[in-house]
């Protein structure tokens, strides 16, 4: 008896096929190595050096000095603050409103398709186009003031959408919220559609009303989707750039909305301090990894079966 049995006996034909399989995966592996793995490793290494893009001086190794600098820099903490405020202020309303709209769409009988398409339509626009439209809406004589004054009955008041530090942050959140709310409505609608109707029927026979049905059936079964949507929207918000960039280029104050990505861009490209910019990149990467890990660790144990 042979000491070890080959795990799988492969015919020559199978081996021949598998060679092709390896060949087919090769382009992608090469691509991801050069354009994903190498850059992230490079970013990590560069973050330990003092390095300027066009400088002829060789980069000097400074260990964690870039990180130390950033963690004591008011400018960087301001970026962390701007990003955190934007993320929290955007993804929570996004989550709640899109969930509410999806549930309501599911309840009405008519126009489901139209409502979904209408809500989704802003997501079709480029981010910069969305920001440009809202730039005009936030004009002192623009629609934002007209609407707010109409609702609050304060005729002729300018709410300083750009001049005021808090309002300009709110303005960027509103643009983002407007652009993506329909996208998440679609995701939630698909999630709700996957809940079998028999569950609701059983609940109705048992005499529960629709409020109970929502809290006891829809929400628990939708939990994986809720977690997914919150993490996805959170990760997207952490990377926000276009709205802030267009607003500041068009005269909005930079301080309140100087999010991390914009800081990386300015530090790395305009000031050419790529060592420091790389350290920022790695910090952003770490923050996002943390939230991704959080998602996996909260959803793994909650696979739902019907």
């Amino acid at each position, binding site marked *: 008896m042979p000491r070890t049995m080959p795990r799988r006996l492969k015919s020559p034909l199978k081996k021949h096929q598998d*060679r*092709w399989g390896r060949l087919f995966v090769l382009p992608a592996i090469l691509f991801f190595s050069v354009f994903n793995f190498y850059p992230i490793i490079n970013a990590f290494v560069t973050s330990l050096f003092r390095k300027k*893009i066009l400088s002829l001086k060789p980069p000097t190794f400074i260990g964690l000095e870039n990180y130390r600098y950033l963690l004591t820099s008011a400018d960087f903490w301001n970026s962390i603050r701007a990003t955190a405020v934007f993320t929290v202020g955007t993804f929570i309303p996004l989550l709640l409103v899109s969930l509410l709209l999806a549930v309501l*769409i599911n309840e009405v009988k008519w126009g489901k398709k139209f409502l979904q398409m209408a809500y989704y339509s802003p997501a*079709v626009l480029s981010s910069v186009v969305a920001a*440009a439209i809202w730039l005009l809406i936030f004009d002192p*004589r623009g629609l934002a003031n007209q609407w707010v004054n109409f609702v609050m009955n304060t005729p002729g008041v300018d709410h300083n959408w750009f001049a005021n530090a808090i309002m300009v942050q709110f303005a960027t959140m509103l643009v983002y919220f407007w652009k993506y709310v329909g996208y998440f409505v679609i995701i939630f609608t698909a999630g709700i559609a996957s809940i079998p109707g028999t569950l609701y029927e059983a609940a109705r026979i048992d005499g529960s009303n629709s409020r109970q049905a929502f809290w006891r059936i829809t929400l628990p079964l939708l939990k994986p989707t809720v977690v997914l*949507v919150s993490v*996805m929207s959170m990760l997207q918000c952490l990377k926000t750039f276009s709205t802030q*960039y267009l607003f500041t280029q068009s005269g909005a104050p930079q301080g309140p909305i100087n999010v991390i990505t914009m800081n990386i861009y300015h530090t790395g490209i305009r000031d050419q301090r790529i060592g420091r910019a790389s350290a920022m990149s790695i910090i952003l990467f770490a923050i996002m990894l943390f939230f991704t890990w959080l998602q996996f660790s909260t959803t793994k144990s909650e696979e739902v079966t019907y």
Partner: protein
Amino acid sequence: MKVQTAIPAVLMRIILLIAVVFVLAPLVFMLTASLMPASDIVKMPYRWIPQGIHTANFVKAIAGNDGQFMFIRNIINSLIVAVTVSITTVLISSLTGYSLSKFSYRGRDVLFLLIMATMMIPFEAIMIPLYMVVTKMGIQNSYPGLIIPFMVNAFGVFMMRQYLITFPDEFIDAARVDGMSEFAIYRKIILPNSGPAIATLAILAFRAQWDNLLWPLLVAQTEKMKTIPLYVVKFTAEMHTDEGAMMAVALIASIPMFILFFSLSKYFVSGAAVYSSRKG
């Protein structure tokens, strides 16, 4: 299912309707303002119906401040980049997805995990090293520089793999018995039978490039290599006071996406809904 409702039906409809107004009003504003002279746009209250068509907005939008008609060139650039990226994404993703789902070589699952791991790497964190890679390759400020870093992405590979896992092996085996080469099987059997997945993926890739601001901001240094988002930013910053022309630019920049959206809305929705199918 309809039971006695927790929220009165009327209130539900009012909420849905307010949301529709909130979502559509800025779009209607873009459309109407692009047809108005600037003096009408900042009129209070805003008149939603244009008094005529103010074509000067579109002339200014297309000709630009300097009269160089750079917008047209930038639109062509965006189309070239977005179409090319869509094609390469579909081809490489499907080839890779085919390999990862229908072959059983050693290390296959490790490779799959490695590719999935790249989803965790945000573009914003690697853009500066990427910029240096592209500079070293000597392709900054060129179409290859704009296109190559986005030729394929992990999400595309993931989607195609999941799609092809359920593809019946019998078809593939039958083709092998017929003496078809492995690449011919990919080209003549796998690709033609992946229509919906390919359409969804192509639209996602096209839209991502149409919307891409950050990367062209780094690599497209001359006006001639810039793409639409860069033009919109520059035009908005320079022509802040010419609201009509700004909205004309915004409208023109959105037309291709709206055409795609109205003709292929099914695939836009499936692109978003991919995330909510729990089993992936």
